[in-house]
């Protein structure tokens, strides 16, 4: 035994030695390669490749030691020195960093020599020399030193030339710079010389412009001045000359654009003079307010008289237009007056108390419904009050009677007017009406009927057009009903509720704020008609008319999701659940936001379920339904079919009892009261318990088996074990292998387990057991 033990120890030691030796030889091989690569480095500070390669190999050695337990043992016995690698890596890294720094300094210096900045190059090379004192660096330093004096002289000339240029002494600057550049041609000198050429150019063109202006060739002068501005855009004198040329040539509107942000008396005078020509007295006075010139001061006095005269002339014009019956021009001139001179009570009262009412009354008398409707809509946009909205709706009604192409306009105006019927002045204080308030709901119903009477005849003439009108009509009516129930959350202009049609029609003219993230806002987007169709249960039409563009705003995205949700419901209604998968997938996270969506999906899925025959499809559909809403009904359905699937697999022995039980326990989490799941779990547990007891019997641990069966809570287990015992007793009696005592014992155990089982009673009695 001892020999064997020693043998094993020796074999083990040999094995360890072989492994360590193998690992060591691998380590040595990498280490040798690292050393060889390192030794190939020739110390050139511009080269780093070999050092970097050898660092990688040292790191490999270090990793090998850290990873291998055998090499760790070797390290513990000092056969391998881990620190050697780490120290070498640190040393080499430092060297690589030094060379990198050197390289940067070297190339920067070289570039500076090329650019003729020898002082900067010298500084860089001196720093580089501190790192590596190479022959080349020493030569470069000498080269820089030799050029420093020349560079200094050049820079003195350059600076002097710049000062001369800034003083406007361009020729002197050129004379100074040009010869220097022959000896020392640096880029900043060449750039300065080019700029000086541009300055000459600008100077010449400006002089030419002045000559042309003097000779009255104002357009040519303007061209030359513009060319000067192309070279020097901020040249104030040139901008002022352009403004003067504009005044001289009568292009007063251009003056202000030339003088924008220019300070000084001349610019202020020119701006004021341009305002005078434009009869903008107030602005002219503002511009001249700070001018000290005595002539300007006296001209400012004239401004007041001119302004008064201008006001009176404009008022006279208004009066004349009214006298001539030209109310449109009277209105326009009144508005211009208010905009120019500010609010004047007389002009304003005449406009809103006389001109505007007369204009409206006259227009209604024309019976030109196209003109009346256009004007009424314009008045509505200007006034944004109930009277003008009412008039627009009524005018649209008569116009649509004349021209069915205008029914769409009528739907928009009519529905918004109806949305505000409670504030409609036409139904207030009706003189013949009893003192009771009118039944607005009934009136609204009757007015909607009038609208429908106009739409319905289109059906026989043009079905496509009819459907479009119905879409528009439905959109407004759905919004009307929905927003009536949400009094505080609608789009309003001056307290007037806007329905989606007028909201969109006047999007650019009436004040609007961004739609909030609320469900009713979906109707105010371009998806509104489709949303309304879905709300009304006409999802098929909604899908047809929804925009094909990508939703952008929050409200648009919400509207699109709403339609997509209804698309899913629509396919379920059609018993085509597979087509519903994609739309529901797109809105999965938003489904809870849609009212009663879970109940609706449960209802539709319940109906779809009735249409499915195949077991596999039931399984797929149940999973889809459960994934979609995870409702109790969906869970119960899924659990039931999954349990049936587990039963099937067990029956075909595709899975073990334990696997089956685990799967069923998972299903219990989905629906813990599902009878199919619970029943299948119970069956498996019966089989498992029975098998366990049978195993005890097979192991001849009969008493333990009997005890387990006796105390089992499952009648099926008790019966099965008692049956086995009785079968064994009968078999023993038949083949005479068992003694009477043994037979009696077996039956007695069976009776202990199932004392009252009628099937076994005969056997109990036959052996005298009660």
């Amino acid at each position, binding site marked *: 035994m001892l020999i064997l033990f020693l043998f094993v120890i020796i074999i083990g030691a040999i094995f360890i030695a072989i492994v360590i030796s193998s690992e060591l030889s691998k380590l040595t091989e990498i280490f040798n390669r690292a050393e060889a690569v390192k030794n190939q480095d020739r110390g050139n500070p511009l080269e780093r490749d070999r050092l970097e390669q050898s660092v990688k190999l040292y790191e490999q050695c270090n990793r090998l030691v850290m990873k291998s337990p055998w090499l760790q043992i070797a390290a513990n016995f000092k056969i391998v020195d881990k620190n050697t690698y780490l120290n070498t890596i640190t040393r080499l890294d430092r060297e690589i960093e030094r060379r990198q720094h050197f390289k940067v300094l070297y190339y920067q210096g070289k570039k500076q020599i090329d650019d003729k900045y020898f002082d900067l190059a010298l500084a860089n090379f001196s720093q580089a020399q501190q790192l590596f004192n190479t022959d080349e660096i020493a030569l470069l330093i000498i080269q820089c030193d030799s050029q420093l004096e020349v560079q200094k002289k050049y820079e003195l000339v350059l600076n002097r030339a710049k000062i001369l*240029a800034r003083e406007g002494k361009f020729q002197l600057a050129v004379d100074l710079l040009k010869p220097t550049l022959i000896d020392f041609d640096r880029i900043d000198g060449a750039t300065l010389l080019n700029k000086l050429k541009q300055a000459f150019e600008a*100077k010449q063109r400006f002089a030419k412009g002045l000559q042309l202006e003097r000779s009255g060739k104002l357009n040519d002068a303007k061209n030359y001045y513009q060319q000067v501005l192309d070279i020097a855009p901020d040249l104030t004198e040139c901008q002022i000359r352009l403004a003067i040329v504009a005044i001289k040539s009568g292009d007063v509107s251009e003056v202000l654009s030339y003088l924008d942000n220019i300070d000084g008396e001349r610019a202020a005078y020119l701006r004021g003079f341009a305002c005078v020509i434009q009869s903008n007295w107030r602005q002219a006075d503002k511009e001249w307010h700070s001018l000290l010139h005595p*002539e300007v001061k006296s001209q400012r006095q004239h401004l007041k008289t001119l302004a008064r005269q201008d006001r009176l002339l404009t008022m006279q014009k208004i009066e004349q237009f009214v006298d001539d019956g030209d109310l449109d021009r009277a209105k326009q001139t009144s508005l211009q007056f208010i905009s120019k001179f500010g609010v004047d009570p007389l002009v304003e009262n005449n406009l809103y108390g006389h001109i505007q009412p007369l204009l409206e*009354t006259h227009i209604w008398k024309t*019976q030109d419904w196209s003109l009346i409707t256009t004007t009424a809509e314009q008045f509505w946009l200007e006034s944004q009050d109930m*009277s003008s909205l009412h008039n627009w709706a*009524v005018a649209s009604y008569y116009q649509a009677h004349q021209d069915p192409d205008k029914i769409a306009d009528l739907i928009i105006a009519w529905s918004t007017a109806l949305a505000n019927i409670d504030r409609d002045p036409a139904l207030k204080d009706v003189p013949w009406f009893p003192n009771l308030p009118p039944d607005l709901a009934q009136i609204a119903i009757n007015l909607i009927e009038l609208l429908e009477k106009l739409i319905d005849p289109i059906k026989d003439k043009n079905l496509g057009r009819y459907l479009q009108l119905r879409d528009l009509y439905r959109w407004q009516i759905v919004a009307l009903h929905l927003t009536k129930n949400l009094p505080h959350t609608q789009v309003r202009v001056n307290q007037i509720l806007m329905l989606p049609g007028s909201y969109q029609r006047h999007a650019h003219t009436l004040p609007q704020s961004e739609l909030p993230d609320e469900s009713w806002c979906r109707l105010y987007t371009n998806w509104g008609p489709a949303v309304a169709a879905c709300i009304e249960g006409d999802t098929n039409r909604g899908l047809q008319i929804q925009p094909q563009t990508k939703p952008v705003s929050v409200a648009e995205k919400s509207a699109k999701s709403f339609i997509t949700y209804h698309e899913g419901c629509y396919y379920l209604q059609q018993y085509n659940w597979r087509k519903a998968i994609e739309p529901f997938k797109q809105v999965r996270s938003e489904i809870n936001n849609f009212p009663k969506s879970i109940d609706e999906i449960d209802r539709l899925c319940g109906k779809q379920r009735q249409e499915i025959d195949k077991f596999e499809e039931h399984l797929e559909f149940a999973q889809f339904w459960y994934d979609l809403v995870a409702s109790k009904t969906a869970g119960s359905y899924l659990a039931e079919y999954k349990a049936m699937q587990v039963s099937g697999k067990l029956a075909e022995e595709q899975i073990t009892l334990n696997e089956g039980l685990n799967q069923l326990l998972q299903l219990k989490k989905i629906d813990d009261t599902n009878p199919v799941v619970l029943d299948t779990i119970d069956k498996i547990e019966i089989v498992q318990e029975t098998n366990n007891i049978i195993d005890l019997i097979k192991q001849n641990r009969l008493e333990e088996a009997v005890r387990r069966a006796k105390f089992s809570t499952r009648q099926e287990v008790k019966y099965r074990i008692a049956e086995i015992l009785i079968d064994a007793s009968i078999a023993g009696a038949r083949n005479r292998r068992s003694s009477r005592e043994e037979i009696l014992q077996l039956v007695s155990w069976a009776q202990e387990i199932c004392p009252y089982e009628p099937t076994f009673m005969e056997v109990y009695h036959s052996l005298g057991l009660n």
Partner: protein
Amino acid sequence: METNLANAYDVLGVPQTASNAEITKSFALAMKERKYSPDAIAKARKSLMNPEDRIIADYLRPVLPTIHRFKCQDFTALNEPVPSIDWLSEFDRLEETIVDPNEVSEIDTQLGIALF
């Protein structure tokens, strides 16, 4: 106005305040005048005699504002002489700006500042 477009009040030529008796009277008059077809006149009468229809006829009328009197302005001040505002050549300075090209001018200084 087309017959089917006319408001019942306009067909019978009665104001909104009209009583049933006035409507009946106007109906007879309208039939005599024949500005509209007898059918339209009959319809208008029926409509105005039925409160449910009459309120719709009320609704289908424009709500027009009251026309106030136009108030005139006194324009006698327009007879006063109108002063004129003339261009002040001091602000032009064209001649002063034209200088000898060899001299360093104001524009050169401005160019120097603008470009350098």
